[in-house]
């Protein structure tokens, strides 16, 4: 039976003529698990919010949405609140009470549920989500992943029939995101709840869902089972970035339509094994060196003088607190894209705080061009020598438009006015230069924030989790932009959880663990040997095409045409 029926839905935001949704038809069966994929601004979130009238934006609506056969706007408020659950991106702002138990009970409090039922429901959900151990905690003590699980549980206590999630893991690290997806799958299979989720992290979701819907320009462009999605590759190659790695490799170098498209790493491996066995020419160019960088290249790199260096740095925030950095070594050369990877709490962010001279380590040295970075006065050190961009770039904007914001920096550093245009062009800011920082997308804001930092020409640019929440389409553009920056001579140090991105664009990688660097080198050097902490492509190719860590490398090795 259809739980949700969308018929020829269109939507226009007030003040524009552009249709945010056009002619959307979609039927969602009861108990199904649906993924909506597509670039930012394609109408995913708008569509999702139309299914939850309480928070649907105002505007002109055409067509109709039915929930269990009734027009969705006609649902009584109480029923709508309980039966349609909605989870948003940012867990921090969705949680509104100070205690875990109170947050869990919030929805039921609103419904005026009696005390006994409330108790039972809250207990049930705490059990289902494994929340008992932190049931009495303050919300502020939870990790990001726990917070988002709490948001999910706080919706599930009302026993919704339909669960809507709008990019729920965009603020989470990959491990927490994986756990979140597993919980979604459990809700779907064990409770039978219908789930519709929009998400950029499609790699992990594809194997879990029943149906994938691709959206583009406000309309549905394709929908079908995950396995059938390999088909869209020939008609819309730009969606390659959204498909799981195994499927991308399969679709871009396989003419054999008789085999089923692989979805997971396991399926990808068995497909690749057959493929490589089948064609003799499929030898990876660098197989001979075992995935290692040729020695000459290494020596040449070593000979280059490091621009910024960290030597055996120890750091902690308070005297009695534990060490966050325990003898961390790093060296960054001029004009390179240097990525710092590692799990949560490995000390990545702290490392850039120490390396940029924001915080002074209590042991070890931080050298800039061979001299201690602290010998440069702070007014010269921060801004002109190094610059740091933290997560949530919105925080660094105070003015009404991007141009004013940049102008203020030009004035402060007494730069020539033409510098603004120069940087605006480099960061492709043209169309948004006069927009308000709160009106532009996350990706655009990220670019504007970087532009702001670039104005005084820092030699090293530190970016903390800059790819967080970016969609696959924008990531590619962002990667190219960073490469352009590096080509101009700026060294970029990027902290990221995103192994895929680092493998694709970094010159060098450092892997952080427990306050120190445990591996440093080119992406291939660091990632090809790892069996778990590596890209999906690396996992697929391990032992079959040694040394390949990106989908494009696999595709190239098989003689296919690499994707942009």
């Amino acid at each position, binding site marked *: 039976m259809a739980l949700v029926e969308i018929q020829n839905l269109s939507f226009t935001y007030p003040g524009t003529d552009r249709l945010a949704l056009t002619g959307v038809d979609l039927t969602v069966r009861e108990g199904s698990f649906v993924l909506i994929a597509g670039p930012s601004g394609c109408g995913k979130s708008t569509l999702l919010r139309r299914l939850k009238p309480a928070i649907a934006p105002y505007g002109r609506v055409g067509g109709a949405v039915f929930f269990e056969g009734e027009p969705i706007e006609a649902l009584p408020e109480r029923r709508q609140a309980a039966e349609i659950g909605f989870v948003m991106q940012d867990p921090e702002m969705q949680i*509104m009470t100070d205690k875990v138990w109170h947050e869990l009970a919030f929805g039921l409090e609103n419904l005026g549920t009696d005390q006994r039922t409330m108790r039972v429901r809250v207990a049930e959900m705490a059990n289902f989500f494994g929340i008992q151990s932190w049931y009495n905690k303050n919300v502020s003590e939870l990790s990001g992943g726990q917070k988002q699980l709490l948001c999910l549980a706080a919706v599930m206590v009302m026993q919704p029939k339909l669960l809507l999630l709008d990019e729920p893991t965009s603020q989470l690290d990959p491990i927490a995101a994986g756990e979140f997806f597993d919980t979604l799958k459990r809700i779907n299979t064990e409770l039978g709840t219908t789930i519709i989720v929009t998400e950029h992290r499609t790699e992990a979701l594809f194997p879990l869902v029943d149906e994938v819907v691709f959206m583009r320009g406000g309309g549905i462009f394709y929908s079908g089972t995950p396995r059938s999605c390999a088909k869209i590759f020939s008609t819309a190659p730009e969606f390659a970035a959204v498909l799981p790695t195994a499927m991308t490799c399969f679709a871009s170098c396989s003419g054999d339509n008789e085999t089923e498209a692989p979805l997971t790493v396991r399926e990808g491996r068995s497909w690749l094994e057959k493929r490589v066995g089948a064609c003799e020419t499929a030898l990876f160019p660098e197989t001979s060196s075992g995935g290692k960088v040729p020695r000459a290249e290494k020596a040449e790199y070593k000979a280059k003088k490091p621009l910024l260096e960290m030597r055996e740095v120890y750091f902690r925030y308070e005297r009695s607190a534990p060490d966050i950095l325990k003898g961390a070594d790093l060296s960054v050369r001029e004009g390179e894209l240097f990525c710092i990877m590692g799990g949560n709490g490995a000390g990545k962010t702290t490392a850039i705080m120490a390396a940029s001279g924001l915080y002074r380590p209590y042991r070890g040295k931080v050298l800039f061009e061979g001299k201690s970075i602290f010998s440069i006065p702070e007014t010269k050190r921060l801004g002109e020598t190094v610059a740091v961009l933290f997560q949530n770039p919105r925080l660094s904007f105070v003015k009404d438009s991007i141009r004013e914001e940049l102008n203020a920096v030009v004035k402060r550093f007494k730069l020539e006015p033409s510098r603004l245009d120069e940087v605006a062009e480099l960061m492709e800011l043209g169309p948004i230069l006069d927009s308000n920082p709160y009106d532009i997308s996350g990706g655009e804001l990220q670019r504007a924030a970087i532009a702001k930092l670039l104005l005084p020409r820092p030699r090293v640019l530190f970016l903390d989790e800059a790819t967080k929440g970016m969609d696959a389409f924008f990531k590619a553009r962002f990667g190219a932009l960073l490469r352009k920056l590096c080509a101009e001579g700026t060294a970029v140090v990027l902290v990221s959880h995103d192994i895929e991105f680092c493998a694709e664009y970094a010159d060098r990688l450092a892997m952080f663990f427990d306050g120190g660097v445990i591996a440093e080198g080119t992406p291939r050097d660091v990632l090809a040997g790892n069996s778990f902490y590596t890209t999906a492509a690396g996992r697929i190719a391990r032992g079959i095409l040694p040394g390949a860590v990106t989908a494009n490398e696999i595709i190239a090795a098989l003689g296919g045409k690499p994707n942009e």
Partner: protein
Amino acid sequence: MAYETEQRDSFSTVNPIIAFVFFAFALIMSMLLMHPVLTGISFFAALVWLFLLRGRKAFGLLLKFVLPVMILTAILNPLFNHGGVTILFYLRYNPITLESIIYGAASALMLGTVITWFACFNAVFTADKIVYLTGRLAPSLSLIISMALRFVPLFTKQAGRIALARRGAGSDASSRNIFKKARSGLSTLSALITWALESSVTTADSMRARGYGLHPRRSFANYRFDSRDAAVGGAIAAGILLTGLAAAFRVFSVRFFPSFQLNDFSPLFIAACAVYALVLLIPTIMYLEEAVKWRLLRSKI
């Protein structure tokens, strides 16, 4: 909140309504009844409990806060209050009277008692309990308190992040110039406010999505009312009634001015004092009872 883990106090686990009534009784009686014996009893009960609750930390609180306040009150009263008939000596033409010294001492004791009870209240009444209590009376007020408890620390943290982000961009180079510092602080505040307003949209959506605004709203009770709560509540109620009666019949009457006068220590007075002491010592008695029980349990193992 650290004391939630270190706390093994039995009274802290009774229903907050009962606990609240107890504190209200202890505080109001300590303020109304200036009889030195009664204030002494109340001070003693509050002190013992505070030590049980906070352990060694209670010393610090006493030395740093309670004692100075008491000493100051005891000294200042005779200096400014010259009532009373028994003049002891003159200090720069100002009479210092026995009555005002006694009154100063009694007020000091009373203030110390009230502060000590508040310290106990602070240790026992966690945010959870306050939210629960207000939830019984006004569900929306309780939600506001709970939200304040969440968002005030969150905003403080965010302000720190903004300041750091500004420093990282070189726009907040620590300067000694006080005007520059103030301007930089204002920018941080402005960014914080914008962020808060912008994020509140998400919060509002999250509330609406979960049916906020439907009627009637009911608060989730994280506390039960069990038989022990009934027993403790009954004991406190009986104590309130008896003490109230005794006070109404002027059993505890005391006069400071013009001359200090206590009534005789009649058997009725002693009985009433015993009742008062018993009620105020309920938390201590419960604590000791539990401690003894555990000792016995352990010795059997």
